[in-house]
């Protein structure tokens, strides 16, 4: 099997973000970056399939400036066979040019499966995976939390609101990965050493102009400080009164 995984380098979210002087971007000073969690689970899914199917290959593709090579190297140290950087000055906010550039690269690869994370927390649009599927005319299952591939066919589970859906699909296919599918392996020391010798190809990304423009970034209004109504079950009548009279939600 030939498997592609598209990954994105994203900032650690456990910080207080600052808006840059241009008012349209986040100040990256001091931020720590790593692979998007959903993409790491996608890499893990691909590696598990490769290990079950001898002769398979896993290729990681990432679009962005040279710093994404660090993210690609991390996946190589997890066990991915080779990496491709689609070089671009920056990653646009518009998912369409990204999906088109990735599709150009994937189209020629003859992949049986193309994995994405279901979304990335920074741009928070979650559109690139299904867009690539449509551009390439491939079947697509989004937000999967269970997967089985056998005899050229796949079965997956996706969690909908209040229901779980089990689907069957032919290969080649595009899958986007939700939490719960697996736990991503950590790179081993041996893996980190081996990754240094693995191929990482750099190509220019064919990016069409973005039709989305960020006009402004803002920090959301802080919630006003809360109040403690009281302690224990004795505080319940007061809480209920506040929910009825003040918040008007009961």
């Amino acid at each position, binding site marked *: 099997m030939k498997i592609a995984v598209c990954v994105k380098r994203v*900032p650690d*979210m*456990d910080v*207080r*973000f600052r808006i840059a002087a241009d008012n349209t971007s*986040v100040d990256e000073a001091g931020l720590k970056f790593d692979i998007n969690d*959903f993409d790491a689970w996608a890499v893990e899914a691909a590696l598990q399939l490769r290990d079950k199917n001898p002769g398979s290959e896993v290729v990681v593709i990432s679009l962005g400036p040279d710093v994404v090579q660090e993210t690609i190297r991390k996946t190589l140290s997890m066990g991915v066979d080779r990496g491709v950087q689609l070089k671009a000055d920056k990653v646009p*906010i*518009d*998912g*369409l040019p990204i*999906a088109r550039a990735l599709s150009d690269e994937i189209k020629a690869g003859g992949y049986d499966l193309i994995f994405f994370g279901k979304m990335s*927390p*920074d741009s*928070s*649009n*979650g*559109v690139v995976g*299904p*867009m690539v599927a449509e551009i390439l005319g491939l*079947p697509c299952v989004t*937000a999967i*939390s269970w997967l089985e591939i056998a005899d050229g066919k796949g079965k997956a589970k*996706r*969690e*909908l*609101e*209040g*229901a*779980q*859906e*089990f689907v*069957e*699909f*032919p290969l080649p296919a595009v899958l986007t990965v939700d*939490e719960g599918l697996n736990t991503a392996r950590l790179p081993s020391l041996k893996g980190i050493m081996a990754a240094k010798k693995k191929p990482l190809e750099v190509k220019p990304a064919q990016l069409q102009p*973005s039709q*989305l*423009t*960020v*006009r402004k*970034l*803002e*920090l*959301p209004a802080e919630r006003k*400080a*809360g109040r*403690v*109504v*009281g*302690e*224990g*079950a004795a*505080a*319940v009548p007061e*809480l*209920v009164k506040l929910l009825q009279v003040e*918040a008007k*939600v*009961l």
Partner: protein
Amino acid sequence: MANVFAYVETRGADVRKVGLEAVTAARALADKFGSEVHALLLGPTGIAAKANQIAQYGADVIIVVEHAALANYNPEVAAATAAGRIKSGGYRAAIFSTSAQGRDLAPRVAARLGASIVTDALSLEVDGDSIIVRHPMNIGKVIATIAIDGTPAIVAMRPNVVAPARNAKAGRVENAQPAVDPASTRVKVIETKQGGGGKLDLAEAPVVIAGGRGLKSAENFKLVEDLASAFGNAAVGATRAVTDDGWRPHSDQIGQTGRLVSPELYIAVGISGAVQHLAGMRTSKTIVAVNKDKDAPIFKVADYGIVGDVFEVIPALTEAVREAKKHH
């Protein structure tokens, strides 16, 4: 004419609340253009009976696509049918929902049209030739104002940010066929299991009761479920710690990697308030927290807090809510 398209989400033969929200958002946009709203109502045989309801919320035209095999969401049929209609109708904008279904559908439609899309939109405005949306980034810690310059602009609204509003229009019905035969689609649903947060969707429920590690076991989630049933309009959610431990399915997880909710009322039961959980619920209108640790970070975002043992407080609250509901 810059008409606006709305996709009306259905489940079985019912219109979902997010479907009415999409029509309401499209109506407000069309009013700015002085144009019409055309709503696509796609579902199983009998869905045509809902056309009048869609007209009540402001659709000038309702395109009804009925097919016996469309009781479940079928991505390939929905995407091909919506994209075909948006293309032939020459719409200025197409409005979807950022529900599980909408997250899957809207980007497919956008790709088919070669159009750009913003999901999880918090607002929808017009400025000159651009459609302007507000969109949360970095798990809601940054809010972007984005101009969409391409046509059609594809926008998926966040559930619960637009209240469905009546604004009755004539609602001319046009009947149409699915753009592809449902029997020919490549991805087949082989089984659907009901479960998880109950009948009400977490993203749509006006009240969400969420439980954390403070509940100590999967069995004790009964306390949370009882409180939800006392409200009658509440869905049950959980923290990542709880879903990772298998006490609840992953689909119930509220937070950075899970569901994003913004209900009228959010009650956090035994939840400390880790940043990754707050990312999923901080836009809730009213937040209540019950936790035995008075220093838990959840109290910093809670409008009302009770410091105490959830095993005492929650049954008392459940009883009080039942009483309050009786007198309504």
